[in-house]
């Protein structure tokens, strides 16, 4: 009886030890898995950082290239290369006006329109009534 009791106690102890090991192992494994996930996430973040840095490097290169292409010397070279004959306007080609440019353009357009009407045989200016289709 005594022997059986001792066995039972030992068994209990062993079971508790095994349970403890299992629980400890589970906790340990969980912790390892957690560390693994942290590592994976951290590496993914590092990867994104690297990609971002690469994009910034590419952007810097493109910006440099654009700046080079937009330089006055490069644009003049292209003008000559493609025979675009683009030239800066001179003061003689510029008509400076003091009035509103919109009014001036409108007046100019209207003068031309009235002149066309007059050339068509009718001295009077005619306005065409637009039918909006309303009853």
């Amino acid at each position, binding site marked *: 009886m005594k022997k059986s009791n001792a066995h039972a106690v030992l068994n209990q102890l062993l079971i508790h030890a095994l349970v403890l090991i299992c629980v400890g192992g589970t906790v340990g494994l969980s912790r390892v898995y957690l560390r693994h996930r942290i590592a994976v996430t951290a590496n993914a973040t590092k990867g994104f950082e690297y990609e971002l840095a690469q994009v910034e490097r590419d952007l810097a*290169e493109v910006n440099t290239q654009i700046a080079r292409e937009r*330089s006055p*010397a490069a644009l003049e070279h292209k003008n000559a290369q493609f025979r675009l004959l683009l030239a800066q306007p001179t003061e003689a080609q510029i008509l*400076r006006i003091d009035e509103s440019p919109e009014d001036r353009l409108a007046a100019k357009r209207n003068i031309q329109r009235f002149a066309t009407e007059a050339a068509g045989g009718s001295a009077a200016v005619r306005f065409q009534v637009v039918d909006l289709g309303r009853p």
Partner: protein
Amino acid sequence: MSKGFASSRRLAALATGIFLCFGAIGLRLVQLHVLDRDQMLAHAVKVRDSTIPLAAKRGDILDARGDILATSRSLVELAIDPWDFVDYADYLRETRPAEAEAILTAEQHKRFKLAELIGVPYAQIEELYVPGYREVDLEKDLYDDARDGRTKIRWVKLHAGVEESVYEQIQHIAAGPSGEAYDALPKAYRGAPRGLAANRAYYRTYPRDQLAAHVVGFVNKEGVASDGMELFADEYLHGYDGWRESERDGRRRELAEYRRREAPAVDGWDVVLSIDSVVQHTIELELLDIATQYQPDRAVILVTDARDGFLLGLANYPTFDPNRFNESSAEERRNAAVAYEYDPGSTFKVVPAAMALETGAITPSMRFDVSLTSINYQGINRTFIKDDHPILYPVTVHDIISHSSNVGAAQIAMRLGDQGLFDAAHAFGMGEKSGFGFGGEIAGLINPPSKWSAPDITRIPAGYSISVTPMQIHQAMGVFAAGGELLRPQIIREVRDREGKTVFAFGREARRRVVSPTVADEMRRILMRVASRDGTARAAAIDGYQIAGKTGTAQKLIEKRYYSKTQHVGSFSGFFPATDPRLVITVIIDNAHLDGNRRNYGAAVAVPTFQRIAARLIPYLDIKPVTASSSPLLAMEGGRR
């Protein structure tokens, strides 16, 4: 009580096993964490812990329209490790003898494509792949198998720096059968050639090459700001590098999960200049023209906004390309606009004239006998510098300036007195730094009256016995354009952070009032006559625009001992529209070489340049003509009196 599931022997064996295992682990842990703790910890810290520097990006230098004048970008330095390729070839022959030769032939194809991509002859690359040794001290011979006083050369430079896009192509070289998709190729047949090593670094680049080189300056190969705005505004531009505490694995790769502390890098700020690339290009083209036509020793052109003193263009000849600064001489890198002194000649005459008007020593209607050859001043007979075109009738200050009379200018200066003339020069900024701030600016030289010799009172008003910088003459002329105030010549418009927000903005800064607005107006009228039909700068005229300015021609001082009769510094400094000034332009040409009997005077060499620059900038900057009715001044009628 339950009997249990195991016999005592089994239990004892299992328990013993478990406890032995745990005991062994425990003992090992005790050994690692207690007995060898210090040693292991030191090793771990040494091997794993690392502080990783985080490089800050240097800010850009932009022109007035936001175009990039200086920026940073990464380049990839390429090198060959020939021994890596030798080891690879040996490995292939041992482990994959059947495919070895095919793979090595593919490697050869990769190197051929590499040569094409980076523009280096293929034969040169093959030469770099020949393995070699370098002699080293025996004590330092620790990195290869044998301690024989020589070590394997594992870094042979191939290219100083290829662009990122080229490096990307290098990393995707395909050496398999044509037409096969890159990803479908076996690993050995794709990617960069074996033995190719790369090192990425940030370099400063100047996309507009020599444009505004003396303003922008440069950063040297070590990344140290060395000249120009790069050095002057380094505090704003350089940013602050950061760091990160982390750990590395056995292959020196960072273990991102062990990042502990981080101080992020702070990128530098952008500096926006007042320089306009188009204006700058215009004046540099003119300088190129001058260089081709006259082969001068030196030439300077300055363009300033007359309203606030900000520089729109500053160009020197000779110049340099900041991308290849190491190929230029110190003389080419010298910013002559502020670091070169010369005798200004007649452009200086405006100084005594204006100050004499300001102090009431003369009046606009006062007449002077300029036919004299000498005059008694302070009890001593002083001989005048002869005029090139003597005038035999009494003239006003208008005539003296428009005809650039040395005799008349000396008489005006005598009315100011020695000290008065000295003070006038200082008031206009001569003999002191302009506040430009960089480029190795010098102060010029004007001796105090106590050190003057007897002829100096006749020579200084004509622009001799005094040394000035081009910038000083330019800002002196700007006094009249700015209504009598001496403006500080500025070049930084604003400083922006990386988000584009303005951190600092700079505005008009008057150093002092030199003359009253009334005298400034009077001087504008006087200077308008210089560019009229009977002035010395008639070629400066532009239809519809009132031009004001002053020519200057000074004999060059040779070896600080004597004045040359053939070498001159020709100059013209002026502004327009005279009655509502927008631009101040100064052109200075040192020792122009003209054909035949033509003389290298300011009127012949500098005035036409001024006129061409003004004519080109009028439409570009939309400078409207000021008509007589809208002018606050009355235009003077030209003609000799």
